[in-house]
């Protein structure tokens, strides 16, 4: 028999032999063992059923493989932009070239003022999001726990989710004037429904057999939530968080453009100022900044999501 493991595709062919050997443990040669670290103790049928350990490529080529399509896409966008600029579609003071814009952006990100603005905006975003998560989680848990509450506001939550957040600003301004609270109000009302919905659907779709297992184990009340319902609803909750973040980020940007709190110079305020000065390169620079922040945070959520999926074995490999 070969000493190296057979390719997993053909594992079934050898399963019988090794299974019989491993199970009866009779005299004779030692059962074949898979020569991979960490798997030595496995023998017989089960060893062949184990998921193959994926060989990890070196880091360099892997990064390149995932990066080149993105780089190409950026290159194409820049090229189209340059062509539009050269075609003279708009005067150059209205529609700047990529080179000019990136020069502005380069100058911008080296100023302390800019980072002050980013810090203010991010502080608002994180505070608002944290508040939305806290409120959304409480509402979601309450709705999934009490049937009358679900009947009362279940569909309302979904309705709120589809409301464009900018619709809330006139009311927010009347209620809270031009202040931080007005912005927070809209950020929370934009993000909380997604968080709540993520939790509700997570709890609703806990597999029935898991619930039965919990019941047979004698799980009740708080222990049932702590050890079964909440962990089981985690993947759905994480996607709710991710969606909630997207909503809160959008609401925040709308808020910063509309609700200018005296004395605060956030990213939105700076962008508005740039528009007032007809400084298109600066406006585009801020658009790029907001885009990059959005992508970075989204990547963070994806990282968390993927780590969870990997841990649970939900990856479709």
């Amino acid at each position, binding site marked *: 028999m070969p000493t190296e493991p057979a390719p997993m595709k053909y594992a079934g062919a050898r399963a*019988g032999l090794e299974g019989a050997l491993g199970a009866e443990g009779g005299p004779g040669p030692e059962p074949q063992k898979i020569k991979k670290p960490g798997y030595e103790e496995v023998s017989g*049928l089960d060893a062949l059923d184990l998921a193959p350990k994926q060989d990890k490529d070196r880091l360099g080529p892997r990064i390149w493989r995932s990066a080149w399509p993105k780089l190409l896409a950026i290159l194409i966008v820049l090229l189209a932009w340059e062509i539009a600029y050269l075609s003279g579609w708009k005067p150059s003071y209205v529609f700047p070239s990529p080179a000019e814009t990136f020069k502005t952006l380069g100058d911008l990100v080296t100023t302390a003022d800019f980072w002050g603005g980013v810090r203010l905006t991010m502080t608002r975003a994180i505070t608002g999001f944290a508040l939305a998560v806290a409120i959304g989680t409480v509402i979601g848990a309450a709705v999934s726990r009490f049937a009358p509450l679900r009947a009362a506001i279940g569909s309302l939550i979904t309705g709120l989710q589809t409301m464009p957040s900018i619709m809330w600003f006139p009311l927010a301004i009347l209620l809270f004037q031009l202040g931080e609270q007005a912005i927070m109000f809209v950020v929370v009302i934009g993000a909380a429904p997604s968080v709540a919905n993520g939790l509700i659907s997570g709890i609703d779709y806990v597999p029935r057999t898991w619930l039965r*297992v919990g019941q047979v184990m004698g799980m009740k009340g708080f222990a049932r939530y702590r050890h079964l319902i909440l962990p089981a609803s985690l993947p759905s909750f994480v996607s709710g968080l991710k969606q909630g973040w997207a909503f809160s980020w959008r609401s925040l940007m709308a808020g910063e453009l509309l609700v200018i709190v005296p004395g605060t110079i956030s990213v939105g305020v700076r962008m508005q100022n740039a528009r007032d000065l007809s400084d298109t390169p600066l406006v585009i620079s801020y658009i790029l900044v907001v885009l990059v922040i959005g992508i970075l945070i989204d990547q963070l959520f994806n990282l968390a999501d993927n780590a969870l999926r990997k841990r649970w074995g939900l990856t479709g490999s």
Partner: protein
Amino acid sequence: MSILETSGVRTASVVRIENVSKTYGSGSNALLALDRVSLDVQQGEFVCLLGASGCGKSTLLSLVAGLDKISSGTLDTGGRKVALMFQEAALFPWLSVIGNVELPLRMQGVGKAERRQRALELLEVVRLEGFGDKRPHELSGGMRQRVALARALAQDADILLMDEPFGALDAMTRDILHDELERIWREQNLTVLFVTHNVREAVRLGDRVILLSSRPGRVIEDFAIKHPRPRRIDSPEVSGQAAEITDRLRAEVARHAN
């Protein structure tokens, strides 16, 4: 001892099912799943419930497990603890293998060090030493059922209820797990109620095979399996008795179809 005193019968019956019926729904939509089923399971007995799909054998297990309420009759487990295993292992993916086995102990309030110790012992019982730190998805189907068995044993139950636990496994793995289950059943002095639609499996494992009819579920016959253990699923004795039971089952299905 108290069982003997109070009941005054010669054997200790662990599960007493008397004229149990189960109806789902009500009015014209009512569906009779079980019809006056009576069954006594003795201490240490391995009883297989056999029947075609829809005969209510899983319903009966749910009733014994207390997951569902009976419509009429009496069902008495004397307050004994039950553990239940399903066709799917239903392990919790957020816990490691040993975490899954420890969970029932945790629910019983067993301390941290002790439950780790006990879980390690149980993993040894199901021959999964060294796999405690793996995640359920890293294991094969057969290994997952071993973990599920260890978790059921961790519930320290007197009665082990098994609902087609090996139904989704290949024949070779199933054969090995039959041996393991038989060994564990004897070592741990368990009482097992085992649901299957596989006649050979029932004859291979059971002290008794209870044949149920379909829609509504009724006890047709109670076969005593006397062949010496350990048995082999492909032995002439097992095959012979399986053929006999299959004929009886076939006659029942035919009667039902007409």
